[in-house]
C-alpha cells in the first residue's frame, strides 16, 4: 500500500498562511492503515493547528472531516462537510488523493499534509518498508520475489555491484544488499540459473519514461447513451 509521512508541522503552517478557513480531510484508505492520514490523525492535526493559531494569533478556523478514499469520485457524496465552503482543504491523502480531489474541486486549493513516500508493506507493528517502485515491468519472477528496482540502491538488474558491506548496502547500513538476498533466495530455490542470465537493460518506458501512466479496463468503461432506436 501507499505509505506517506506527515509533513513537518512548520511547513504545513506555512502552506496555510494565505487561508483563514481550512478543512482537514482524512482519507480512509492506505494512509489510515499506515497511521498517518486517518480520521484520528486528522483530528490531531486539526487540534494542533488550532493550538498553533491561538499561540501565534493567527486568524485560522480549522475543522476536520473524513472520506472513504480520495481517489474515487463517488465517495464525495458521503462527505458531511462541503470542501467548496472552505478557503483551502488540507488533505491527509497521498499525492494521488490531493491531485484527484483538486480536480473535483477546481475552485478550492487542496494542499498536501503528507509527503507520499513509497509503496510498502507492514514489516512489524508500527513499521513499514519499501517493497515496490511501480516500475511497470515486474521482474520478481526471476529474482525470488525480491525487487531489485525498489530494494537495490542502484536498481541494478544483473547482480551485486562491489558495494556490499557485511551483507548491507554501503549506501545504507540498515538496508540488506538486495542482490545478496536475491542470490541467497535463488540459491535456496535451486534457481541460480536465473542469476546467471544476462538481463538486458530495462525498458524505462513503463517507468516514468513517458509521463502519466494509465490503465483502462474496457469492460468497465461507462456505457454510452443509446440513441433511441426506431
Amino acid at each position, binding site marked *: 500500500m501507499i505509505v506517506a509521512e506527515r509533513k513537518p508541522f512548520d511547513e504545513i503552517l506555512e502552506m496555510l498562511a494565505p487561508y483563514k478557513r481550512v478543512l482537514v480531510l482524512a482519507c480512509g484508505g492506505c494512509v*489510515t*492503515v499506515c497511521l498517518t492520514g486517518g480520521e*484520528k*490523525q486528522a483530528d490531531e492535526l486539526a*487540534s494542533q493547528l488550532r493550538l498553533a493559531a491561538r*499561540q501565534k494569533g493567527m486568524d485560522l478556523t480549522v475543522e476536520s472531516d473524513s472520506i*472513504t478514499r480520495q481517489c474515487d469520485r463517488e465517495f464525495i457524496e458521503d462527505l458531511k462537510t462541503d470542501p467548496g465552503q472552505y478557503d483551502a482543504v488540507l488533505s491527509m491523502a497521498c499525492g494521488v488523493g490531493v491531485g484527484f480531489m483538486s480536480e473535483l474541486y477546481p475552485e478550492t486549493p487542496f494542499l498536501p499534509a503528507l509527503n507520499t513516500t513509497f509503496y510498502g508493506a507492514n514489516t512489524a507493528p508500527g513499521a513499514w518498508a519499501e517493497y515496490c517502485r511501480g516500475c511497470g515491468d515486474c521482474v520478481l519472477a526471476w529474482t525470488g520475489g525480491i525487487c531489485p528496482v525498489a530494494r537495490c540502491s542502484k536498481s541494478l538488474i544483473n547482480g551485486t555491484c562491489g558495494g556490499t558491506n557485511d551483507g548491507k548496502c554501503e549506501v545504507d547500513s540498515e538496508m540488506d544488499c538486495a542482490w545478496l538476498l536475491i542470490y541467497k533466495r535463488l540459491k535456496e530455490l535451486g534457481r541460480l540459473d536465473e542469476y546467471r542470465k544476462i538481463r538486458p537493460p530495462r525498458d524505462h518506458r513503463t517507468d516514468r519514461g513517458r509521463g502519466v501512466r494509465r490503465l483502462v479496463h474496457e469492460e468497465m468503461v461507462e456505457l454510452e447513451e443509446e440513441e433511441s432506436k426506431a
Partner: protein
Amino acid sequence: MRDGDLTSRDVATLPSTCELMEREWAPCRHACPVHADVRGYIEAIAQGRWRDATDLIRDNLPFAVVCGRICHHPCEANCRRRDVDEALAIRELKRFVVELQGAEGATVHKAASQDKARVAVVGAGPAGMSAALDLAKMGYRPTVFEKFPVAGGIPATAVPKYRLPREALQIDIDWICAHGVELATGLEIGKDKTIDDLLAEGFEAVVVAAGLAKSRLLPMPGADHQRVYPALEFLTDVSFDHPVDLGQDVLVVGGGNVAVDAARSAVRLGAGRVRMMCLETPEEMPAYEWEQQEAQEEGIEFIHRRGPIEILLRQGQIVGVKARAVTRVFDENERFDPQYDDSDVIELACDTVIMAIGQAADMGFVEGSSLKQDDRGRLVYDAATQQASLPGVFACGEIVTPPGSAVEACASGQRAAVAVDLFLRGQEIRIDDSLPPEIDCIAEGTAEKVINVSREPVEAVPPQTRLKTFGPIDKTLAQEAALRESRRCMNCGAGAEVLVDKCAACLTCLRVCPFDIPKVTDVARIDSSLCQACGMCIAECPAGAIIARGWDARGLPARIGAALASAASDGHAKIVAFICGHHASAADWRGEREPVAGVAEVYLPSVARLSVSDLLAAFEKGADRVLVVACHEGADRYPQATRRISRRVDQARQLLAEVGLDPDCLRMLELADENREAVHPALVAAAGTLPAG
C-alpha cells in the same frame, strides 16, 4: 458486510450509542425477572453516582430495598464473571446503594397528571404494588386494598425481620406511594367489599394480586392441636410481634425457604431445639443453599427423606411426630410425586410442630363476585392477557403464577399494568414478551487474560450472636468494599463496536487489545462476548471506526470544558488532570474533596480510553497544563493500560512541541492507585512546578 455489522449510517440515526446495548443483553439483565439494567447501575455505583444507580434500579424494580435483602439473585447465578473468578455480589451492591439513598434519595417519576381511570388492586404485595406503581406513572389512579394493617405482602407478613428489617421495606412502600398510589389497609376484598362492588363503585379495572397467603395443611391425626402451626400464620404472628406459644422442641415439617424461615424464627424465639424434617435429600431440598447453610450454622438439624403421618399426643401435649421413609420425591418427569416406604417408620420427639409444606391461595376475594374458579379452586385466568373471567378483572403474582420470588412478582405486576392499560384504551391485549438475545459466556482464552480480583466478602454476624435476635444477620457492604466490588464488573455489552464502513482493516485494534479479541478479515469485528470495554482500540483506531456502546467516546472534550469552567482558578494556571478512578473514592469521583486550586480533575474508569485527541482537546479548551494520573503498571483495571497511555502521552508531547508549546506542559504520573493522601500532594506539586502555559 455480515448481518449484525454496524455502519456509521446506522449509528448516525441513534440519539446515543447506548441504544446499541439494547440489541443484546448481558446475562444478568436477561435473567433478572424485571430486566433491570444491572451493568448500568453497577457502573454508576463504581463512579459514586448513588442517585443514578438507585434511579436505574428503580426504573425496573420498585422493591429495590426488599430485593437488596432477600432476592434470590438469578443475576448473580448468570454473571459472566463467574467464568473468570467469581460472580459479582450484585444483590449486596444493590442493598448498599438503595439503603444509602433511602426513599428521599430516589427520584420519583410522578405522572404530569393523574386523571385517567381508577383501578383497584387487591393485595399490597410486590405484585400488586408494582402494578399500582406503573399504572400511577401512566396517569391512572390506583387504589391498593390490603387486608393486613401494613403494605408489603409476604415481605411484610412472613419474611423474618432478620432477613428484611421492616424499616427497609417501608422505604420501598413510601417510594411507591409517592407516585400517587393510594393505599387502603385493613380492608379485605371478599369480606368488606366484593370485586363486583369495586367495579360498580367506579373502578374501571381490578387487578387481583392476592398471593399465596395461606399455608397448606396435611390432614393427619393430631393435626388440629393448638401447637401445630401453619408456617405462614406462625411467621405472620412473629412479624406482628404477637405472642406465640412455642415449646422447647420444635419440629418444622418442610424443606423450602418458608420452612427455614420458620425454623430460624423458632430459634430466635428461644426454642431449645429446632429441627427440620423434609421429604427431600439435601440436594433436592428447595430452600436456597445459603439459607440452608445459615440455618445449620444456627444449630438447626435437617432430617431428610421423611414424611409425617401422625402427630403424637400424650395427655393433651404433643410429644412427637411419626414419620415414614420417603423412597423418592420426583418421578421420571421431575414431577412432585412422593413415594413412601410404610414399613420404615420412626418417631421424632418434639413438642411443637410447624407445617411448612407449601403455600396456598386464600381465595376469599372471590366471595360475592362472579369470578370463575376451575375445578381445583384456582382462578380462571388467561396467562397471555392476564385477564380473569370477568371483563376488567386481571390477575398477577403468585395467585396465578407458580410460586415465585418477590422480583418475579414485581415482573408479573408490571405486565398486568400493561395489560390493564391496553384494555382501558380499548386495544387488543397483545404483549410482546420477547427479549433481546443474551450475550454468550466468555471464552476461556479471554477469561484467562482478565485480571483476577476476589469477590468482596459479606460480613456475617456470627451464628451464636445472631440467633438470639431478629436483628440483621449480616452487614451491608462498606462503601470502599462496594466500590471495589462494583469495579469487578466486566461491563458486558458496553464495549467496542466497529463501524465496518470506516474500518480499513489496518490491524491496529488487534495489536493494542490486551485480550487479543478483534478478528480482522475484510474488516475488524469485535465479539461482544469477549470485549472487556477497556477502550484502548477506540482510542487508537486511525480511522475513528470504533465506537463504545456504553459511553460517548467523543464526549470527553465537553466534559473537560465543563470541568475547567467549574475549577476555581483566580489567576492560577489552569490544569486538567485526567485521573484513573479505578482506585479512587466516591468522594473523589463526586468532586466532594478538597480541590487543588486551578486543577480540574476528570475521573475515568481507566486511562486506557484516553486518546491523543483528548489530551490535545484539553489544551484547546483552555488548559495551560495537562496531567495524566495513571495507576502503576499492573494496578490498572486493564493489563498494559499504563504502558499504552504512556506512549500516547509521548506522542501528544511531540505534537505539542511541533506547535511550539512546551512539551513539559503535558506530564504523566503513575500513582492513581495510591489514595488521596498521595494524589492530592502530587496534584499540588504538579500545579506548582509545571511550566507556565
